[in-house]
Structures are given as C-alpha cells and as structure tokens.
C-alpha cells in the first residue's frame, strides 16, 4: 500500500453543514433527540458514540436519505432533505458495508457516476477512474467484481468511488469497522490526506477512538440520541464526564457483577 497519495483538488467550493434541533422517531421511538451541531467548511468532524446511539441515522439525515420528524439539516444554504440539493452539492457517502453495485465490476462501479452525469468522454472517465484507483492502490482490482473483494478492499473501492465524484462534502459511515488495525490506520491516513489535498468537508461516523481522536479537527459524542459533548480531540483525552471516559477508555473488569451472573448461569 502506498503511503503517499496525490489527489486532484476538487473544483468548486466546499460546504459547511448545520444541524438544527434535529429529532427523529421510528414508529414513535425517538432515535435522535434535539441534535444541533455545526461543521465548518473544510474540517474533519468525527461523530462518535456507542452502537445504537443514532450516529448513522444522523449521517443519513445529512446525506438526505432520511426525513426528520422535526428540525433539519442544511448543507451550505441548501436543505439536505430537498432532492434538488444533490444537483447543487457534490455529496459522497462511503457506506459502512461499501454498498458497491454487485452486478458491476470495480471499474464500472467507479465509472457509473461520470457516465450517468455525462461529465466527460469515455477516455476522460477512464483517466478519472484509474487515478482514483491508483490513489487507493487498487489498479489490479479494476476488473474484479465486489464479490471477489475482501472487506478492506471493498471499503477502499467505496472511497475511490466517492473520490471519482469529486465531492464537496464527504461522509464516511464507520470506515474502519471490521478492519485490522493496520488497515484501519491506512484508511485514517487516507481520510486525513484527502482532506489536506482537496479541502473537502469531511464527516466521519465511527466508534474507532484512534481514528476520531487522531485525525478529526472536532469530535461530537452522541449517546442515547443526544449530543453528549462537542470539542477538539485533546479535550476528550482528559474528560471528567464518566460516561465519555468509560466509552473512550473502556476497562474490562472481571469482578463486575455481570460476569458473576454469567459464571452462575454456566454452573
């Protein structure tokens, strides 16, 4: 894997994101409660939280894939829930499982966006796709189909597909989940380098502590559908909030009464 990446700076401006008093309920059950936050243009913003805390649902609202029960999200001056926004803002979302098109090869997965939007002739598309593949060291996988790829490769292809879109807002949903520590570090490095080279506004949803605290400019922690805290990564390393401290530095306590219960159960 290359350790240096050279991405073309994306044309056009980058956008900030504002979430205002966002509430979301699924069948009456609240999932997001009164979420407000602001992501500045060009910053890497990490959203952390335990599983089921509503991080991915928040990201789907920013991507315009969910409709809020109340409140809303704006990207620049555009409403994220308005389908027209997608033609005004180049937004790319790297899904947790990749969401690659299984019936298309890796090359065609990447070429789909410029082809559908007729951005350039086929020779230009080829150049653009091969460049994105080379950034992620995936040239050899161009002819493969998603079913032939490992989990790590799928994530890298998903990032490459996002790069081809030359996004002004880049969203990542758990980019390092199910990856080994080395691959996780590589993905973190790619996210940071892409922002550095293209100034793209980046929002990363993760529960990977080293990714969020290592590369983000600011971090928000969501617990039980609410923002628990927002701040710079260094503010979280010495946090006095016991819930956040426990989340960021979990301790395996074998004397915990829950373990005792399990022992009794097995006896």
């Amino acid at each position, binding site marked *: 894997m290359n350790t240096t990446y050279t991405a073309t700076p994306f044309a056009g401006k980058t956008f900030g994101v504002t979430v205002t008093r966002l509430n979301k309920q699924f069948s009456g059950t609240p999932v997001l409660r009164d979420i407000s936050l602001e992501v500045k243009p060009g910053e890497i913003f990490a959203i952390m939280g335990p599983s089921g805390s509503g991080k991915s649902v928040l990201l789907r609202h920013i991507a315009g894939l969910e409709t809020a029960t109340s409140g809303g999200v704006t990207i620049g001056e555009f409403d994220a829930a308005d389908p027209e926004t997608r033609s005004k803002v180049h937004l790319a979302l790297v*899904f947790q499982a990749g969401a690659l098109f*299984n019936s298309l090869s890796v090359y065609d997965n990447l070429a789909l966006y410029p082809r559908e939007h007729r951005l350039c002739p086929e020779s230009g598309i080829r150049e653009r796709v091969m460049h994105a593949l080379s950034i992620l060291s995936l040239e050899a996988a161009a002819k493969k189909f998603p079913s032939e790829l490992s989990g790590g490769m799928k994530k890298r292809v998903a990032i490459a597909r996002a790069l081809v879109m030359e996004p002004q807002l880049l969203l990542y949903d758990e980019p390092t989940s199910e990856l080994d520590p080395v691959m996780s570090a590589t993905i973190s490095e790619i996210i940071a380098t892409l922002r550095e080279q293209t100034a793209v506004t980046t929002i990363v949803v993760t529960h990977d502590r080293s990714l969020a605290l290592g590369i983000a400019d600011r971090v928000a922690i969501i617990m039980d559908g609410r923002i628990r805290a927002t701040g710079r990564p260094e503010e979280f390393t010495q946090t006095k909030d016991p819930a956040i401290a426990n989340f960021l530095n979990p301790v395996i306590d074998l004397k915990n009464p829950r373990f005792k219960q399990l022992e009794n159960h097995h006896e």
Partner: protein
Amino acid sequence: MKYLSLVLGNIGGTLLLMVRALKYTPTLPRQFPRFIEQCYLVGFTTLPIVTILSFFIGSVLALQSGYSMENFGAKQFIGTLVGLTMARELGPVMVAVLVTGRVGSAITAELASMKVYQEVDALVTMNIPPERMLVLPRLAAIIVMMPILAVIANLCGWYGGALVCQYTHFISVDSQAYFAALKRFMEPKDIIDGLLKSEVFGFVIVLVCCYTGLSTRGGPREIGAAVTKAVVASLILILVLDYFVTKLLLFTT
C-alpha cells in the same frame, strides 16, 4: 382499516413510481444498452418456457374440446375455439403468469437486494434517480417484449392444438380443416385485443415488482418476503385486470 390504508398506500406508491419513471422517458435513448439487456432478460430468457407451456396449453385445449364437442358433432369448430381462446384469453394471461414467475420475481429479488444492501441509497446520494436507471429500462423492455411473447404463445398454442387434432384418434380433424376453422371466425381485432391485454399485464407486473423491490425495508429475510408479496399481488392484479380490460375491449369497436 389498517389493511385498507396499506393497500391504498401501495397503490399510491406504485402510481407515483410510474409517474417518476415515465418522467425520465427522454433519457431512454442513452440508456439503450441497459434497455437491450432488459429485453434479453425479459424476452429471450422467458421464450423457452413460453414456447413449451403454450404448446401444451393449446394441445390440452384441443384435447378437452375435441372430447366434448364430438358428442354433438361440432368437431369442425375446434380450430375456432382453440384459436380464439388462445388469442383473446389464454395467450396473454398465460404469458403474464409466466412473466410474473420468471421475470417479476427476479426483478423484485434484485431490487430488494439492492435496497437492503444500500445500493439504492448509494444511487440516491450519487444523484442518479433509481426510477431512471432501474425502473424505466425494465418498463420499456416489457412494453416491447410482451406482445412478441404473446404472439409466439398464440402460434405455439395453435400448432399444439393442430397436432392433437390431427393425431388423436377420436378427434381426427386434419390441420387444413383446423386452420380453416381457426381463420373463419378470427378477426384482426381478436389478435389486437389479446396483444393489448398482454401489454397492460406486462406493464403492471413490472411496475408492481419494481415498487415492491424498491420499498423493501429490513434485512435479507425481507427479500424473500418481498418476492412472495410481488408475485401474489401481480397474479391477483392480472386476473382482476383481465376481467375489466376484457369487458372494456369487448365493448370497444
């Protein structure tokens, strides 16, 4: 009440999908490769089963009618009966049923799987409307292929009936007499009505199956449930629409 609102919601959703997909009709020429691929999947892969089954439907129709009509000396009209029944009713309906099983189920399974594995969400974020890329080429393909399949089903059914009439000892109507009877009472309108019915059925099947696939929520288990739902809904709609379309066509000159 809850069930009624669910049904009405599905009808509304399907109609909305149709409007959204048809809105992209001008993009069809540049989706030509996708359209051809769908024509292949809808038409060519369904052809063997349509050929075989309609041949045997025509055969059994001739056999049953030959057995009954022999009693009152009307064997010479077997060709008429088989010809009209295949052209006006059994051809379009059987092709629709086969297309539901062979093509509709595959469409729902594919789209439901794309929905469950977030491929549809990926299209939306890429500002590629799923109605344009996934629904429109399939609708266009079924409109082109359905009458072709119906014509082939009619021909196979007629020839199946002719063979049975000629070689079954208690019928023994030669193929010349069979086809003469078939032609005598057959009008172009009978064929056209059958083809129109097959167009309506095909369009509805693809629309219902696309809608069911794209509205799937949940995990992989829901893909199977979506296929069952789409096939059952399509079969019910084919038979209900058959009555109303037939009534409409019978009273339209």
